[in-house]
């Protein structure tokens, strides 16, 4: 395993973390969107605010982490991705700004009316942003991002794999967020809310599984290189994901929300790692391998050292944040405190 592989793995750690933490974060917005009117949705929305309020900014630093690794580790691949996928990236940017801004604005709105406007912006952008991120992943995975000259500015990211990737991303985020929110509601003592979200999460999980099957067929037809990687090295990860997803659904039926969340995290993590393993050693499938585009060696060593620094500074800090947020003192709802 060479230095370029190390850098690629470290970058992919960020991809997996973003898929899980960012995914649960985005997915919460989808639950917000479908929560109903102000009266019906008040409990769900209050829970979403408690669940992601303290962590959402940190969850989205993972995207910056990925981008920094990408342009520092693989500068030419980064430039190619940005050139060809200009439109979806711009839309992701708009989505991130609208989402974060609206989420903060809603919390301090003066009236219900204002909160509803900000809330709907937050919710819609929470759905749209992972859609485009999934489409970007699909474009890279299906070999539509060339290295040397820019690919088609529209068709590169609207192919079958991109559509499948986008839809699957939104559904995965929703399912994942559902298990987080159900577990959080249970812990804060709101059993009725946990039951409600848990039941809907079960349905979301079934749909996600079905769409994942369709996506698998799409990959066979539209992204042969990735598909063949998934038949080989990636197969075990696909199986892990399927089993963990099934386990999660089972636990949802048994109202074991916290266990269901563990299953969902493993399922999402495994499928994302499967993608990485499946397309390895390519970084731009069909156009460039990791080794072809790796940046200057001294900087890569620096990058690995910075990762070490992050592991001893950021990881304990993140762990403390998550422990606090998941502790009973922090998750208590106003009426149980």
């Amino acid at each position, binding site marked *: 395993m060479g230095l370029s592989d190390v850098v690629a793995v470290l970058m992919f750690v960020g991809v997996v973390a973003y898929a899980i933490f960012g995914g649960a974060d985005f997915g919460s917005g989808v639950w917000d969107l479908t929560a109903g009117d102000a009266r019906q949705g008040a409990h769900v929305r209050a829970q979403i605010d408690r669940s992601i309020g303290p962590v959402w900014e940190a969850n989205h630093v993972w995207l910056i982490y990925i981008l920094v690794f990408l342009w520092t580790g693989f500068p030419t691949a980064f430039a190619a991705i*940005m050139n060809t996928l200009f*439109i979806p990236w711009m839309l992701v940017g708009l989505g991130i700004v609208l989402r974060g801004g609206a989420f903060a604005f809603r919390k301090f709105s003066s009236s219900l009316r204002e909160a509803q406007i900000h809330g709907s912006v937050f919710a819609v952008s929470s759905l749209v942003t992972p859609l485009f991120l999934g489409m970007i992943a699909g474009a890279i995975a299906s070999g539509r991002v060339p290295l040397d000259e820019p690919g088609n500015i529209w068709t590169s990211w609207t192919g079958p794999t991109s559509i499948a990737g986008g839809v699957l991303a939104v559904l995965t985020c929703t399912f994942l967020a559902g298990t987080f929110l159900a577990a959080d509601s249970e812990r804060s003592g709101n059993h009725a809310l946990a039951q409600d979200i848990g039941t809907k999460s079960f349905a979301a999980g079934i749909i996600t599984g079905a769409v994942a099957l369709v996506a698998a067929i799409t990959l066979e037809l539209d992204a042969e290189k990735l598909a063949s990687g998934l038949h080989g090295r990636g197969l075990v990860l696909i199986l892990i994901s399927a089993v963990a997803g099934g386990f999660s659904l089972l636990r949802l039926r048994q109202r074991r929300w916290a266990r269901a969340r563990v299953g969902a995290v493993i399922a999402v993590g495994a499928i994302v790692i499967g993608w990485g393993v499946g397309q390895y050693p390519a970084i731009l499938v069909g156009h460039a391998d990791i080794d072809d585009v790796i940046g*200057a060696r001294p900087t890569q060593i*620096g990058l690995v050292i910075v990762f070490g620094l992050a592991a001893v500074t950021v990881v304990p800090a993140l762990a403390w944040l998550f422990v606090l947020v998941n502790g009973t003192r922090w998750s208590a709802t106003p009426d149980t405190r």
Partner: protein
Amino acid sequence: MLIAAQDVAGELMAARYQMALSLGFHIVLSCFGVALPALIYVLHRRGLKHPDPDVAADSLALAKKWAKVSAVLLAVGAVSGTVLSFELGLLFPGMMEEFGDVIGLPFALEGIAFFLEAVFIGIYLYGWDRLPPKVHLRVLIPIIGSGAFGTFCIIAVNAFMNNPAGFSRDPATGDVIDVDPLAAMFNNAVWGQALHMFVATYAVTGFLVAAVYAVGMRKGRLDRRHKMGFLVAFTFATVAAFSQPGIGHFTGQRLAEDQPSKLAAFELAEESEDRAPFTIGGLWIDGEKRFGFDIPWLGSIASGNSLNQVVPGINDIPEDERPPINVTRVAFQLMIAAGTAMVGIAAWFWWRRWRVGDAVFTEKWTLRAVIAGAGLSVLALEAGWTATEVGRQPWIVYGEMRTADAVTQNSGVWISLTAIVILYASMAVVATKVIRGMARRWRESEDVDLPTPYGPSELQRSTDQVEVG
């Protein structure tokens, strides 16, 4: 062929405008991100330690309010900063392609800073009444530290663009070789620039916060909280405003050697000469300097601390390597004028306060001057960035890569520029509206915990909770 060339020029301008707007928007918010936690720390600490319980209670209440406002400002700052990171690649992929690995180290370190800031802000904002008070106060320290460190890292990248270092060119192919990421990060320009920007964050935040209280006092709200909020913020603003001219002078010293074309535009110098004058006002019209007022010799002293310092002249810079002279020049002079006025306003305020004590808070013109100072601080910030960025043109990496060669080939930049204009304009309006709404509700009731109106029942519940708890 001609049409193609025009298209590229059009895209270049659109990309530059979009970057300018995105940076110009983010930079104001990032000031709050860096400096506001330090202001909050002072108040929060007073709230825990002050012997007079009334003062302590007021300090703590102010710290809580500022923390809530910072939650809004920092959220918008965080997301606009995230977008900047991929706009670099979207708008100027050529730069990232060639220099992404040269300058990646400070970006990666900045990632750590950003992570720590986001994590500890999350802990701090949600930690009221949940963490032990002393621990809660200390959570601010890593936020303040990572703000300062993050500033250094990001400015290191900008300083690299001004002063490329840490690599060489293959004589045969022109490729970037021998990359030394530490040398790239610790280039000549970094210390001066980073300190200049770091102090600017405190000047801008201090002036803006003080101005909010000055507006309140103009409306007759002369309670202790207003005075306290004003004085804490204005103390930071004063220290920053007084240090900034010296730091700026130090920062400018390297220009004669490192970026002569920028210095020529800053000084509006026609020919290279020693004992060069310092010109006030003036424009570059038809290839010559017009309307300026010259102070003999001061130009050489300002840019090199010596009468013998040669100030480079615009006419000695090849035409295709000159920045837009008037934009650079006017921005530079505006920055200096605004910065000088800020020093004057700070001096005036403290002199008046020394003379008349707290009666200064009833002086109409003193308060108005502080309010004007807030506008000037933002003007100085934006003008300073305009001067350094436009003054580097036509280069994106000085002497190494032209902006035109780095810009995206995509033809849709005018559309994304339009979208960004609308987006940031509405974000600014909405953020202002939300924060004013918070201030209004705080004036109406003593309670600092604003209920979140998710729905009728939730609103009722949180109101009950406030009454109980």
